[in-house]
């Protein structure tokens, strides 16, 4: 069936662009877990809000290139601002409580956010189209390929590198890494831990929202969009290793390829492919591909 290497090449491209789409969504989730140690169920809801915010911004700016950029950035900024309020007023009260309470809180947040979205935008479907410069296809020599998918293939690595640069090469990044390793030490260093936590939660939420805005031109903006994506984001973060950016990147690639190739070669059993993969990876490496084991016996 796949004797044709050109079709296979296109499928590889498809896998990669899906992987990058997924990575952009998962990056914020892994960031929040890495520093705050919170499994954020509301991540999908933030993603959805991002898409709706971009929709509203584009409603004002019109469907221009600039409008699209503003839509993506504006969605991130607005979501970040809301996340700041939520973190300061509510979530911050739970940091020294049991992990499970934080989980319960983010779950409750999902319920609230989904209904608020429904109140504001209704339950109908909307669509955001790709900005004019990313509409249509480019000819890859063998076949047309959507410009927007190609754009995601480039945007994903850029975002990955940007986060990496921020984490590894800036002062703020060093503080964040310190926070990931040791909260007590961070306090001793005199850095305001509160600020770091707020910053991380805001950044994670903003990334989710921008992920929603960036994914919108390939999907619908509707009240079900969060449910479809959250489980994929979780799979990526878990198999990559919680808190590991590189792990999420690799995890996204694995899931992207598995989804595309699975639907071709596994066909009707593709539905369980990602879960089988997750089981296998966790059994071989219980802390994920790039996570750190908690302890060792050997």
């Amino acid at each position, binding site marked *: 069936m796949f004797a*044709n290497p050109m*079709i296979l090449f*296109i*499928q590889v491209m*498809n*896998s990669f*662009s*899906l992987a990058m*789409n997924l990575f952009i969504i998962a990056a914020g989730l892994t960031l929040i877990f890495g520093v705050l140690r919170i499994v954020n169920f509301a991540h999908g809801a933030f993603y959805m809000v991002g898409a709706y915010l971009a929709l509203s911004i584009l409603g004002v700016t019109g469907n221009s290139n600039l409008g699209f950029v503003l839509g993506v950035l504006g969605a991130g900024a607005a979501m970040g601002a809301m996340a700041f309020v939520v973190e300061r007023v509510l979530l911050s009260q739970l940091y020294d409580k049991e992990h499970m309470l934080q989980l319960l809180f983010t779950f409750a947040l999902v319920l609230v956010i*989904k*209904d608020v979205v*429904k109140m504001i935008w209704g*339950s*109908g*479907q*909307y*669509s955001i*189209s790709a900005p004019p410069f990313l*509409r*249509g*296809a480019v000819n890859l020599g063998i*076949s*047309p*390929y*959507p*410009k*927007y*998918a190609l754009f995601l293939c480039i945007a994903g690595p850029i975002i990955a590198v940007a986060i990496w640069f921020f984490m590894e090469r800036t002062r703020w990044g060093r503080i964040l890494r310190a926070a990931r390793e040791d909260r007590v030490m961070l306090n001793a260093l005199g850095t305001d831990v509160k600020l770091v936590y707020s910053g991380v939660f805001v950044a994670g939420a903003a990334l989710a929202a921008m992920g929603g805005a960036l994914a919108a*031109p*390939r*999907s*619908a*903006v*509707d*009240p*079900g*969009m969060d*449910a*479809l*994506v959250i489980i*994929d984001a979780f799979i990526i973060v878990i198999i990559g290793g919680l808190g590991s950016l590189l792990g999420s990147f690799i995890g996204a690639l694995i899931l992207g390829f598995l*989804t*595309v*190739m699975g*639907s*071709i070669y596994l*066909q*009707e059993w*593709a*539905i369980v492919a990602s879960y089988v993969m997750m089981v296998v990876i966790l059994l071989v490496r219980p802390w994920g591909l790039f996570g750190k084991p908690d302890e060792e016996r050997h």
Partner: protein
Amino acid sequence: MNYAKAMKSCAIALGAAAMATVAMAEDGPIKVGVILPMSGGSAYVGEGIFTGVELAVKQVNEAGGVLGRPLEILLRDEQLRPDVSTAAMRELITLEGVQHFIGPATSATSLANSQIAREEKVVNISPSAKTEALTAGENLHDYIFQLAPTTDVDGVRTVEVLKGIGTESICFTGFDYAYTHDWFAAVRANMGDIREAGAFLVPMNATDFSATITQLLSADCDTVIGTQFGGSFIAFIKQATPFGLFDSKTVLWGSNTGDHAVAAALGAELPAGLWASAADVWYYEGLESHAAYQEALADFQGRKETDMWPITGYNAVKFLAAAIDTAGTTDPTEVAAALDGLTIQTPLGEITIDPETNRANSPEFYGRFEPQDGSNAARMTDLRLVR
């Protein structure tokens, strides 16, 4: 034994005094349980159907109600979960004494609720479920009525349209679930010498269709038919357009994607030439009754360009009201009997419920989307109301 029946036999046994009490109790409104998806990705379906229900109930009540009693709606969210939808139905039966139900919207929830309807002997009109299983074989019983055309009917109608287009070879795509399999089976059974060039299904809940789109492009077929619906249909269109799928193939879609809501959401992104079907389109001008309905609906919703789902809820209420009227009582067994073979005038002409199969011969629109001057949303042209 059924509660109402018990009440009745009691009443007869106890004589006139008791009869008066019962009559008093029966003076109140007739409760209609409406169970629809009101949250999550399919909420637009539930809200659409519910709008139609509300409009019809308003009209019925303004015209003096049924048997002189007004209809009262009790709405519950099915959440697309059979356990929730059955719990809601039981609650309405046991707590509110509801004996007439409209909904749920999807196949799985409708199948589940139908079992309760059978056991509790309450009337259950399914406005939108298309699955054969709902009224086939062992699942068919006296209290369940299916208004939407089933997948078998869709199969026949689809092939008719395909032959009209001149399809010679066909590819299938869609979510890997019951509706897809049923509809494709019906198309295959009827397509005669149209050649099948492959079926490319994606797992349920998938959000990325690029792999299948690539497969479809390289498959040797002139026509593609598919079943993604709602948001997933929109996603499919947006992903397939830049690949040029709609330039190289004729595409026909099921799952009521001819709905104006879909066209409005996609706007200019809806590819010209896409064939689709819908239970209703507001711009159809062939029938007086339809024009009157659309005027009322536009009035009710405050917008002229309405969606397709309201008509399913609207017709369900009209059937129920007519049946109660015919039966002369709200007793569900008698109402169910009245629904057998009942014909009513609907906005889309006469519709009859077959007394054998409990299925209605509801018509559907098939057409080809073309962009409209002066409007953002494309409309179906070559519009045909298929019965």
